[in-house]
């Protein structure tokens, strides 16, 4: 089959067009939240109903996954700030601080939130999961100062936090192992705080066992998950817009797989016949 041996650069052009055209056109498909995403939303709503609600948001992703993770970070920060939940942000990934600062600054200004009283940014600490154990024992010991060099005891949002259990919810934004192999075994397991997370689509299937065992209370998986969250928030953002291109390219890839396999089986039949 010569058709199957076409130069792959021709296929590359198809993919580029499949992404670019839907982005430039204006059409949409209805979005409905799946259960894991709904659970995250419900967790934030539960937190919002509590007294002096405060969440810990851990940025555990780097630059390579920005298109997937940044819309998710914006969506959950919008949810927190719109419901007057205070946010303490930390980074467990060395590339994350720049991205976390951008997201926090943008959403805080959208909702008129003040640094120090409504949110704090504590920066990055190395050690993969070691900071999680450290925070579980003593939060101020793990993060003595914020990214600006202020002692956490002097910042209103963090001054009363003793350990991870003082947060109404811990939320991890993960591009790698951080949910499955850092937060769950070294945090949730011992300290039993409420924990949910968002991750790249690559990681999402691995986390289903933890959703069922309640070690993870809800999960936003990839750009599609972020779009569902935007839908629940009724604030369509870049993830929702991306779903047009995502839908079209998925259909293209599925068509490619079907075509390729049809040709493969046709050629095999010819050989055997």
């Amino acid at each position, binding site marked *: 089959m010569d058709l199957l041996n076409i130069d792959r650069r021709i296929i590359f052009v198809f993919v580029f067009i499949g992404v670019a055209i839907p982005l430039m056109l204006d059409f949409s498909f209805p979005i409905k939240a799946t259960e894991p995403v709904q659970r995250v939303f419900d967790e934030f709503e539960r937190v919002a109903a509590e007294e002096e609600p405060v969440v810990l948001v851990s940025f555990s992703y780097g630059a390579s996954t920005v298109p997937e993770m940044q819309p998710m970070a914006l969506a959950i920060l919008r949810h927190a700030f719109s419901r007057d939940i205070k946010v303490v942000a930390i980074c467990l990934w060395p590339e994350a601080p720049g991205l976390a600062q951008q997201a926090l600054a943008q959403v805080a200004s959208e909702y008129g939130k003040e640094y120090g009283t409504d949110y704090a940014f504590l920066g*990055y600490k190395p050690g993969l999961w070691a900071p999680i154990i450290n925070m579980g024992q003593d939060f101020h010991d793990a993060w003595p100062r914020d990214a600006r060099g202020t002692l956490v005891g002097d910042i209103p949002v963090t001054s009363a936090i003793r350990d991870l259990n003082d947060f109404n919810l811990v939320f991890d934004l993960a591009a790698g192992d951080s949910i499955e192999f850092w937060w769950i*075994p070294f945090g949730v*397991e011992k300290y039993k705080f409420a924990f949910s997370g968002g991750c790249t689509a*690559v990681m999402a299937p691995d986390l289903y066992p933890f959703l069922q*065992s309640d*070690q993870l209370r809800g999960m936003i998986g*990839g750009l599609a998950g972020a779009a569902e969250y935007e839908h629940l928030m009724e604030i369509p953002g870049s993830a929702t817009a*991306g779903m047009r*291109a*995502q839908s079209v390219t998925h259909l293209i890839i599925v068509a490619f797989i079907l075509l390729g396999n049809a040709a493969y089986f046709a050629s095999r039949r010819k050989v055997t016949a």
Partner: protein
Amino acid sequence: MTNDKKLFIGFVGLFALVNAILLGGGYLDMSWASLGVIVAAGLTISLYSFLYHDNPLFKLAEHIFVGVAAAYIFGIYWYQSLYGEVIVRLFSIGDDPGTTTQRLLLLVPSILGLLILTRLSVKIGWLSRISFAFVVGVGAGFTIPRYISAFVLSQIEPTIRPITMDMDGLNLVLIMIGVVSVLVYFFFSVEHRGFVGGVSKVGIWFLMISFGASFGYTIMARLSLLIGRVRFLLDDWLHVM
């Protein structure tokens, strides 16, 4: 002149022209932010040129990235950990509230940390083994009980719930069959023949569905990244969205 050289010059010319139009048309202004968008667009397209084939433009962009990334991460480690925490506390710079005991205790990881760096020397490199023994030993020790609790106990317990005569019960039975058969597949003490062979075959089916899930989701992830970059090119740079 080779074909590739012509392509290269054509590309650079076109890139300059497009940017001139964008600047002239007022889509981009003469600010650092606009310059940034132009640089980022140039690097993005240079990296995509690898799709045509491996070429100097790709290699150039890739190596610029490698250098910037290394220095960026140095900055994070320096300001947020080594200076921002270790040095500030050890030498009690500024408003540091630490006690002398805390400072003395902090000396231990600082010295162990410096010992790690001896690995770069052939003569005294063995000193780094003390630090590695600490990192690896403590890591292993923390891991064992926590993995038993978080993975073994917490994953087994929700699997062995009472089975009911409804859809949930059926799903629970399927999950049970799946977990057991996958464990049997990764069981190496018995030949995969007869009954065990049959069970391990079922295990493969479950594994294949889960790989299918990972496969579909990975494709989704890569496409999302591409969508993000194309959006950047079309919207932030070209302003055609």
